[in-house]
């Protein structure tokens, strides 16, 4: 039996069909490129504020981030007249912290503990009226896509004094 080595050639309509399929494929590739150009995949950050109970809270958070890149996260808590001898107690959603791969807090919390879905940090009171805290963090590797609201709150005793809600999109 003889085997023909010549391939089956595309005719005109077949070639156009193949070209159109290639164009669809290219358009699909264009989607992530354009999305990246407009900053959809981050890193994008934003700031949100909240106040209550004599406290003012300002949170700088990642609006969009992706696996392994820097995730800016910092907050400042201010209280007119200063904090006195009381520690500054801040809670952060555990679901948010679980998605970060972090080195350290600046300043380092004096204490921390889990409280269900929250992680509660206690910071030594600053000399002035403002405590500024930043986290040296990256988005953890092996992330799936998620788009959720998270909360940071300043506690006054057992209750929330000021709560800031922010939205972060994590890209794989």
């Amino acid at each position: 039996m003889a085997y023909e080595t010549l391939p089956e050639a595309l005719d005109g309509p077949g070639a156009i069909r193949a070209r159109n399929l290639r164009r669809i494929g290219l358009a699909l590739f264009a989607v992530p490129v354009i999305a990246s150009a407009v900053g959809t995949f981050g890193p994008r950050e934003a700031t949100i504020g909240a106040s209550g109970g004599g406290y003012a809270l300002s949170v700088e958070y990642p609006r969009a981030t992706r696996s392994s890149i820097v995730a800016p996260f910092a907050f400042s808590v201010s209280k007119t007249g200063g904090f006195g001898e009381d520690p500054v107690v801040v809670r952060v959603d555990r679901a948010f912290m679980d998605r970060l791969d972090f080195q350290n807090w600046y300043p380092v919390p004096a204490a921390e503990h889990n409280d269900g879905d929250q992680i509660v940090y206690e910071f030594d009171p600053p000399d002035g009226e403002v405590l500024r805290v930043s986290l040296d963090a990256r988005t953890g590797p092996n992330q799936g896509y998620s788009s959720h609201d998270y909360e940071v709150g300043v506690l006054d005793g057992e209750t929330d004094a000021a709560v800031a809600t922010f939205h972060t999109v994590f890209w794989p």
Partner: protein
Amino acid sequence: MQLILRTVVIFTALWLVLRVGGKRQVAQMDAFDLVTVIVLGGVVTQGILQEDYSLVSALVAVGLVTFLAIGLSLLSWRSERLGRLIDGQPTILLRYGQPDEVAMRAERISMGNLLGAAREHGLRSLDEADLVVLEPDGAFSFFTKDSADESDGEDAEDHRAKAV
């Protein structure tokens, strides 16, 4: 945006490497050239993605490299002058059975390379070759004296047919 800029810069640098590396670098790779290409691949990945291991960044880089490559081929197709600049030009290495040593030196093609390419094309001797061209993609094109004679014969028959 940083990722896009890095990809464009690295792509341009790679194109430049291939252009200044010469045709030999493209297709006539020896073992060391192969190692160079592998090392280059690793360095390029680091340059583009740096510490970014995300899936979306890899997709963006792959997509962008594809578009840049298509863009270069479109430019090359639209303008002959740009095509020469982007892809390079073929080089005649042998004419009428005589190797052009100046061209071979310029393309870093040794007599051993030429003889090897001739063997791959089924030639026992360079005397059988009428013309050898090193194409911009690094491939050798061989025109044998037999084919030149046949071509001449066909031309002569065409002339005779036209005369009739």
